[in-house]
């Protein structure tokens, strides 16, 4: 396990969730998601940490090629994303249309008697939404991990993309580069070059955070990040690292 830098070059804007609070993408979440996909596992319910094969407590030996840090709270030594230079925020809009002509060919659309299948209102209506997105050429991560295994695993990003609305082409990945960090950093993935949190760090593990003025929030600090069982009071990475803040409202085009 060596300190590494991961550079993901993007070919289309990176989108953030709509009408939900955004969180940064962390490298360990990506790695675990890709690994679970490869192994044909799907997590639909919050897992019991004792039975979760990808829990940091079960490393090494669970296939996750990342170092583990923390004593009481165990977590992977992998940073949250950092936007590359010149990130340009904008709003991306998309629509869903009602497939009327296809419905007429194959279904009993015309004589449907349940909910009204109307494209103008109700749950089948055509709709339009706007997502916050950022045009950026690359995002960076730092970690301590296994270089060749990470390179192999993260290569899958070329097929899956990064961020939300990947299915519609947001967050297309052009290339992934995994290289040794040019400086010796044993705490790579934990702190950025200015000594601030580079990922959510459990507050109990780093008591010095208060003196340094870091921001403390109730965040997930280990995968799966969506699970309520993964949360604790954490020092969180500065918002400008991963979100174009303050966010100017600018539509596409």
């Amino acid at each position: 396990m060596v300190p590494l830098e991961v550079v993901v070059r993007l070919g289309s804007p990176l989108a953030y969730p709509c009408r939900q609070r955004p969180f940064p993408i962390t490298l360990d979440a990506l790695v675990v998601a890709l690994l679970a996909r490869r192994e044909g596992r799907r997590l639909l319910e919050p897992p019991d940490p004792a039975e979760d094969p990808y829990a940091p407590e079960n490393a090494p030996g669970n296939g996750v090629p990342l170092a583990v840090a923390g004593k009481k709270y165990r977590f992977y030594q992998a940073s949250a994303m950092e936007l590359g230079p010149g990130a340009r925020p904008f709003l991306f809009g998309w629509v869903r249309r009602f497939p009327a002509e296809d419905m007429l060919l194959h279904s009993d659309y015309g004589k449907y008697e349940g909910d009204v299948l109307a494209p103008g209102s109700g749950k089948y209506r055509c709709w339009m939404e706007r997502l916050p997105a950022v045009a950026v050429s690359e995002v960076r991560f730092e970690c301590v991990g296994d270089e060749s295994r990470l390179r192999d695993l993260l290569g899958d990003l070329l097929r899956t993309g990064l961020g939300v609305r990947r299915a519609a082409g947001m967050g297309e990945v052009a290339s992934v580069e995994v290289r040794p960090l040019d400086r010796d950093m044993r705490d790579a993935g934990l702190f950025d070059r200015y000594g601030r949190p580079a990922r959510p760090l459990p507050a109990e593990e780093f008591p010095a955070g208060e003196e340094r003025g870091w921001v403390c929030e109730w965040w997930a600090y280990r995968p799966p990040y969506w699970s309520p069982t993964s949360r604790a009071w954490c020092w969180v990475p500065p918002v400008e690292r991963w979100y174009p803040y303050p966010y100017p409202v600018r539509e596409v085009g």
Partner: protein
Amino acid sequence: MSDRLVCCRMVALEPISHGDIPEQGAEERNFLQVRTVPWPVPTGEEDVEFVFIPAVSGNSIRGMTRRKFVGRILRVLGYDSRTNPLDAEKAYFLLAGGTLQGSRGGVSGREYAEVLQAMPFLELLGGSYRGVFFPGALQVGWAWPVTKETREFLKAFSPFRHELDHPEPGVQVPPARALARGNAALEHVYRFTRASVAGEGDEQGKLLEDLERLVGGSRQSGCNRLREVLGRTDLKGDQLALAIASAVKLEELEGLAAGLDGENGEGKGKPEDRVRAAWKKIVAAIKGSQALYGTQAIPAGIMLHSRFGLADVSSEQVLWAFHAFVETFQGLGRLGGMAGKGFGRVAVECRFADGRPFADHSLGAKWWEWLETNAETVKGALDKLDALARRAQELGELRRQVVDAGKLLEGKDPQAPKRKRGGGRRGSS
């Protein structure tokens, strides 16, 4: 890996119309503004400037291809609106992805896995049926125009490196600025009109005939007078009301207008106001199908590049379905909208990421063979969807009761109204 990443090189044989969503509060236009995305263009050694270049979103390509792909699946399964129609809600789920509204929680387990296994195309495309969510494994990329700047990005993964550097004669690879917003190539508006007079027997046609009778005289002269009034676009307000009043009787005009909405024909107030009100209704009915409109477009002769990716999946049938999906797109051979008006035709060439020609190595034919052989199994799985949805509802209800019990233990009122997040208009999913 290479079987699950397919790149497409396209040459626009016609202009491509793909609309943007207007900015909130933007001036209303009668033409479609083409969708553009910011793209970084180097201006110095380290500085970049963002220019807005046109592109066709993966959402559009995915939706258009999905409708055709699922349509063919339904034909193979024997569904037909006249003889053997599929339930409309299920058709909506398969063709458009369904809706998340009414969702009460997920469901997993054996029944879920059985349905997913019996319908591999569901694992490919994803969707949501009455609260049962199926994640999709398909990623459809943007169709980017090949410019001097986007070419460098595309060459990082595209198997068309040679073609990007050496396009066919007549196909241009311009700098991004030449295609960007503000440039004449993109700002040009292709304009169209739609005639107002409908066919014989049509409601609007009948209305026109009634108006002609009101105006009086022979059919020809009445028609001319009517056209004269309709054509006086310079007349507004009182002037228009007077012009109409000089041509028709007020009561008859009101009677005609009343026939449109079933209200009492006799109005109140000044005669001019009554004429104006009645005329407004009639004009709205006549002009229902009349429009002057237009669209901006990506010019023909431009090369575009897109890709289709597939995440790791559970069976080889999903891979076959993925290839069949790409074949469907290739067969469609178009991008964007207004296909009926001469927009969007593209010449498509697909290759796997390792450079193999897609047409020679596609497994799409296996998908259609598998579907024909297993049609009854797939139809059975479609029937099981309702049982799965009921199970999701039950689980959702159980979850709600557990949450309510937790609230009661904390001394909170479980029936207290939930605070809405965000507010305003909400989408259905």
